């Protein structure tokens, strides 16, 4: 008998036993729904993470930062080390071919004063590249320009929250902000940065809104007076994500040479970090996954049970089919098709429920809704596998029935 005709028979069986079919599908519906939901939610999480990172550099960013030495007893070279400096920045610019930008940032703490405000705050020394790396563009005025850098200009660009903090409701553009003893002219206020992982969470990018940014050269000349021009960290933008690993190795090599082997720096690949984060997230996925698989197992066992019971009712039918010329394989196929049909119905019903479930939860925690082709794939694969697996035993049982005994069965 062809597959098509087996499906015809199975459809009849399912239609005649509607109540039984509903019972059989319940477990599969729940199982598929939760697997689809897991798929959807983990996908939502992944997208969310990607979006967050893309707000300040994306996956192509490699962070080089200072790492304090932990050794109690230090060698002469270690004692001599002072971390990352301007020389490192220039070396990286020269020697890392896949780097599109090498963007150093230096930080310092200074007292900030306006007529209405006075407090010790962190200030950031940056280059014009900063706005591209962090996608941090002015809402009004302008960002730092090359000229500012060359002239060590006393200009400052403020994050939105910082501007409010220093000047209240007044327009800060063109006003003077005192950093330490030096007056800096406010040339730009930056667009607000916002990112909420979940609704009701704190703004994960608020730290950017609180920035006070001056030319890195001005920071050196006015405040640190540091001949080495030390930097706090360096963002290296790579031309394409595939080159991240190579770039990390190259950066390590250049810096190891320049730092005479002293490990006072660390190179962090954004892509690797993202992967790690996802793996951490996967633990939660696994819990949901286990729930889904458990429901499918229970659903499958229910199906197998009911199939076994229905086989007992249909022993004679199997005998008749065999007398008429059905081979064991035909009978097995018929029962398998029946169980897969039942689980496929379960999968079909489970899919929209799973989507609802996923979107309900993501809506609850304020994440965007997701519907992906993978959801449909999960439901199809899960339901067919369950149908095949749990239909196999009844199918083999049926196929092996002795026709004489089956025909005699009352």
């Amino acid at each position, binding site marked *: *008998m*062809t597959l098509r*005709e087996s499906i015809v*028979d199975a459809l*009849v*069986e399912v239609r*005649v036993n509607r109540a039984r079919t509903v019972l059989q599908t319940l477990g599969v519906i729940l199982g598929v729904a939760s697997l689809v939901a897991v798929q959807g939610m983990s996908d939502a999480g992944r997208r969310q993470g990607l979006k967050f990172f893309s707000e300040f550099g994306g996956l192509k960013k490699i962070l080089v930062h200072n790492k304090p030495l932990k050794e109690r007893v230090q060698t002469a070279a270690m004692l001599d080390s002072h971390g990352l400096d301007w020389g490192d920045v220039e070396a990286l610019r020269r020697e890392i071919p896949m780097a599109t930008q090498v963007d150093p940032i230096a930080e310092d703490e200074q007292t900030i004063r306006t007529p209405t405000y006075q407090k010790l705050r962190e200030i950031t020394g940056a280059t014009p590249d900063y706005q591209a790396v962090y996608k941090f563009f002015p809402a009004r005025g302008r960002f730092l320009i090359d000229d500012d850098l060359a002239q060590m200009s006393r200009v400052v660009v403020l994050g939105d929250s910082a501007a409010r903090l220093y000047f209240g409701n007044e327009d800060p553009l063109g006003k003077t902000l005192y950093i330490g003893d030096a007056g800096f002219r406010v040339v730009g206020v930056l667009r607000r940065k916002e990112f909420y992982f979940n609704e009701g969470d704190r703004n994960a990018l608020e730290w950017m809104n609180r920035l006070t940014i001056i030319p890195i050269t001005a920071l050196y000349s006015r405040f640190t007076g540091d001949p080495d021009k030390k930097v706090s960290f360096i963002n290296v933008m790579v031309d394409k994500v595939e080159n991240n690993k190579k770039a990390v190795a190259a950066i390590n090599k250049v810096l190891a040479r320049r730092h005479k082997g002293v490990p006072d720096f660390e190179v962090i690949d954004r892509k690797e970090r993202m992967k790690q984060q996802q793996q951490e997230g996967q633990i939660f996925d696994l819990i949901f996954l286990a729930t889904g698989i458990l429901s499918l197992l229970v659903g499958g066992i229910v199906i197998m049970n009911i199939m076994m019971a229905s086989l007992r009712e249909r022993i*004679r*039918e199997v*005998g*008749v*089919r*065999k*007398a*008429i*010329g*059905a*081979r*064991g*394989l*035909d009978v097995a196929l018929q029962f398998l098709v029946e169980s897969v049909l039942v689980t496929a119905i379960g999968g079909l019903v489970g899919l929209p429920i799973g989507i609802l479930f996923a979107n309900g939860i993501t809506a609850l925690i304020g994440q965007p809704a997701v519907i992906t082709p993978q959801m449909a794939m999960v439901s199809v694969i899960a339901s067919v596998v369950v149908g095949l697996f749990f239909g196999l035993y009844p199918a083999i049982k049926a196929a092996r029935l002795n*026709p*004489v005994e089956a*025909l005699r069965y009352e």
Partner: protein
Amino acid sequence: MLPASGSDPVIRLVDVTKTYDSGDTAVHALRGVNLEIGAGESIAIIGPSGSGKSTLMHILGCLDVPTSGDYDLAGTPVASLSSRALAKVRNEKIGFVFQAYNLLPKASLLRNVELPMLYGGVGRVERKERAREALRKVGLLERAAHLPSQLSGGQRQRVAIARALVNNPAIVLADEPTGNLDTQTGKDILALFDELGKQGHTIILVTHDPVVAERASRIVRIVDGQIASDGASVRAAAEAVVPAGVVAVDAGPVAFAH
């Protein structure tokens, strides 16, 4: 398509035995059965319960294989075939008619009649056509879409007969075909078998009812796993005496032994 009447035997059993192991003791259901049935014969196998009559029917129907001995069915030695090959033989060469009709309850009459062709791999169009034709022959074409439960017993048995014939089998094997029917309906069904016999079908009736057995031209009596007697039925003998009979020649030489 039907085998030519009277020539080579369609069935030949040689020294067929069947032994069942039931615990410590072996049950000898058949003890050396030799039987030839010619194409186009109509034969009744009778015997009390426990005689081995059912076992013989199962072996004839290729539902079971002999413990020893040979069985040729329409030229094919089937005694040692695999279960897979036996299924094919059942599908192509045997048409079963059961006491309890054994129609599939959830399938329409048409689908029930299609079933042997479904397992025989007959294409959809030809299958439907042949199933309709078979239903027409038993007078139930207009009810093709009905379920078996909507029919009377006699009608169900007609459908079963249509199903048995639809693949043009070498033999039709009927096990107590009138056992569940009232006398009149039973007579109608037997008349249908007579009709089939006249059309050249080889028909084997398994029964314990002497009246039913008399409808055949030849009666084989099984007792204790052996053939106790094998000869023309009274009707066939009478028809042989009065040469106006149609089937007397088919009854074979044993007809004159009585």
